[in-house]
């Protein structure tokens, strides 16, 4: 009887610890919210082969929600560096996307730092694979540092700076 009770107690303890661990692991934190914005950015920027105009319009409509009022781009060898308004940036992306058959943007090694109540920085490795309409495929991998600001309860990208790993 006593042995059965202690076994039940052990089972309940394991269950309680597992539940507590799950709650801690799954609870939304600012770090996770910022990380999720990087996932959304990659998904909305990417283009699947044969993507229809409705899907593209929906993606571009929601892409703007990820950016702050002004976004600064500073990437090596990129002709479009500078400061853009949210609408300008979405417009540029909308014009670039049809030039490619497929675009695959992914982020790995994403490190999030919460700098304050409404500011965060993200350091990540960005991998961009584009398939041109003529069938050529190009790949570019860069380390990028992003700055985000929280506005209206949502984290928004306000700057993208490339980290120079190899300096000629």
């Amino acid at each position, binding site marked *: 009887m006593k042995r059965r009770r202690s076994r039940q107690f052990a089972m309940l303890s394991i269950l309680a610890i597992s539940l507590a661990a799950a709650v801690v692991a799954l609870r939304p934190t600012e770090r996770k919210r910022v990380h999720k914005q990087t996932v959304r950015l990659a998904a909305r920027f990417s283009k699947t082969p044969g993507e229809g105009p409705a899907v593209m319009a929906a993606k571009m409509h929601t892409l703007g929600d990820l950016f702050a009022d002004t976004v600064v781009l500073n990437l090596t060898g990129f002709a479009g560096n500078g400061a853009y308004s949210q609408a300008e940036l979405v417009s540029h992306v909308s014009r670039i996307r049809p030039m490619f058959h497929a675009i695959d943007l992914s982020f790995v*090694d994403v490190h999030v730092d919460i700098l304050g109540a409404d500011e965060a920085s993200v350091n990540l490795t960005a991998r961009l694979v584009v398939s041109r309409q003529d069938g050529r495929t190009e*790949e570019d991998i860069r*380390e*990028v540092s992003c700055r985000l600001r929280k506005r209206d309860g949502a984290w928004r990208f306000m700057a993208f700076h490339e*980290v120079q790993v190899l*300096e*000629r």
Partner: protein
Amino acid sequence: MMPAWVRNFFFPELKRSFWIRLGLVSVVAYGVFGHVCILTRNRGRSMEPTYADGAFNFCWRPRFLFSAPQAGDVVIVRLAGLRVMVLKRVVATAGDTVEFRDGYLFVNGKRQEEPYVRHRGNWNLPPRTVKPGHIYVVGDNRGMPMAEHAFGQTPVRRVKGGPLL
């Protein structure tokens, strides 16, 4: 009829000793293959012919634990983390002057013999000095256009090891 050792190997008795053994093997495998000897796959042709595109290898993290990378060493340089890294060869260290003339590498004004380079393009790069705490890394494939080849100086602290094979 299956021999006993085969049966024990593939269908072990789920005793406490089995779970302890399984746990230990998992922890050791995670430690070794996750942090010490990381499985990698080469992507890109910048290190050909030494390392082929698509080949598998391991990043041996302790490679430069007790010694700094020297000219001729192949190093693995991290980007934001360890999931995507860059495989290059060190051609010069801090204080050296690096230059390319007609595809040939010159370090401190002397032309370097590079037996690992099979194809040479017409690379030209004015002399530059490697900063303190940095190394200068270049891929072995000099046959590709210089504009498409990622090379240059990088902090030594970014070196995360060397290829095992």
